C-alpha cells in the first residue's frame, strides 16, 4: 500500500484519482473530529468537504515537516474554528441535534445520562483542553502529533490533556456519577 507522501507526489505529477485516494483514507477520522468540534452532523459533513478541498488545493505547499495526517488535522481544526466563530449555534440546538442522533434503543437510560454529562463536561472545558483531550482520546493522535496540530509543545499538550481530564472527572462527580472501571 502506498504511503501518503507517494500519493501526494502522484497527485502533484498529475495522476488522476490521487486526490480521491487521500480523501478515502482520512474522511472518517476528519468527519468524526469535526463532528466533535461542532456537535452537528450537517455542519460536520460540509466542513469535512471544505477541509479536503482546501488540503488538496494546497498540497503543493505541504512542506512535509510533519505527517500529512497532522497537517490535515491542522486544516480541519482551522476550518472548524472559523465555522464556529461565524455560525455559533446555541447550546440548545446542539444538544437537540445530539439527542436526535442517539440510538435510544441500545443505550440504557443511565448510560445515556452519563454520556450526555460527558458531552456537557467536554463542552465546558476551555478550548485548548478540549482539543487536547479530543485529539488524544477520540482521534488517537500521539502527544507529538497533537502538539503539531495545536501548534504548541508536547509538554503543553500533556498539561492541557491532564487538566481537561481532571476537570471532566470533577464535573461528572458534581453530576453524581461515579466512574468505575
Amino acid at each position, binding site marked *: 500500500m502506498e504511503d501518503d507522501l507517494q500519493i501526494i507526489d502522484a497527485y502533484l505529477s498529475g495522476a488522476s*484519482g490521487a*486526490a*480521491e*485516494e487521500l*480523501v*478515502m483514507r482520512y*474522511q*472518517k477520522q476528519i*468527519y*468524526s473530529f469535526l*463532528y*466533535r468540534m461542532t456537535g452537528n*452532523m450537517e455542519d*460536520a*459533513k460540509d466542513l*469535512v*468537504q471544505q477541509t*479536503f*478541498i482546501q488540503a*488538496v*488545493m494546497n498540497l503543493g505547499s505541504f512542506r512535509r515537516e510533519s505527517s500529512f495526517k497532522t497537517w490535515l488535522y491542522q486544516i480541519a481544526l482551522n476550518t472548524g474554528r472559523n465555522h464556529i466563530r461565524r455560525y455559533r449555534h446555541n447550546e440548545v440546538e446542539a444538544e437537540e441535534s*445530539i439527542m436526535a*442522533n*442517539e440510538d435510544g434503543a441500545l443505550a440504557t437510560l443511565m448510560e445515556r445520562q*452519563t*454520556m450526555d454529562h*460527558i*458531552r456537557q463536561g*467536554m463542552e465546558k472545558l476551555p478550548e485548548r483542553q478540549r482539543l487536547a*483531550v479530543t485529539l*488524544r*482520546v*477520540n482521534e*488517537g493522535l*500521539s*502527544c507529538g502529533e497533537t502538539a503539531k496540530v495545536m501548534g504548541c509543545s508536547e509538554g503543553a499538550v*500533556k498539561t492541557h*490533556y*491532564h487538566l481537561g*481530564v481532571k476537570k*471532566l*472527572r470533577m464535573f*461528572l462527580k458534581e453530576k453524581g456519577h461515579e*466512574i*468505575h*472501571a
Partner: protein
Amino acid sequence: MKSMHDEVSDLLPEYVAGSLSDEVQGRVKRHLLDCGDCRETASLLSRVSSPDVPDPGEIFWKTLPVRVGNAVRDEKRPWWSVRHLLFRPFAMAATAAAIFVVFFVLLKGREAVEYEPILRYPYTEVVVDYSDPGIYDIKRYAELVIGEEFPVTPYGMVEDSYHRELASLDPGQMEHFSEALLQEMKKGG
C-alpha cells in the same frame, strides 16, 4: 525521573485505544490493578472515546472523494473555460452581457455609418437622385413630405406592402408622385 504513575497516565489514551505494544500494554494493566486513580481515568477515557458520532451514511462516504476531486478540478480550471463558467452563473451572465453590449455597439455603429441618405428635401433640391434609394431615404422622404416623424422603423417600412410599393417606383414615377403630393398639399388635402 518520571514515576510509573505519571508514565501510565500519559499512556492511557493509547491503552484505551489498544495501540500500545503487548509489553507496554501489560505494564499499564499491572499498574491499573494497584492504582484506583488511573483506573478511574481509563474508565472515563473509554467512555469519552466510545463511538457517539452519527454516521452520515454509505452514500456520503462514497460520493465525498468524487465531490472533492471535482471541486478541486473546477477550481484549477482557467476562468474562461466553458465548464468553469457553467458552474458560475454570475460569471456566465456577466460574460453574456458583455458580449451583447459589444455586438449592440458594433451594430449601432455600423448603422450610423451606413446612414447617408441620397434624397434631400424634394421641394428645394435642384437635382434629386432617385436612382438608388435606401431604406433610410424612403423613411426620410416620407417624413419630409408629411412634415412629421414617420412612426415606423426603416425596416418596418420596407416590410410594409405600401412602403415596398413606394420603394419600387422608378425615378420618373417618384418625381410624378412627389409633384402630385405637392399639389394635394396646396389644395389642403
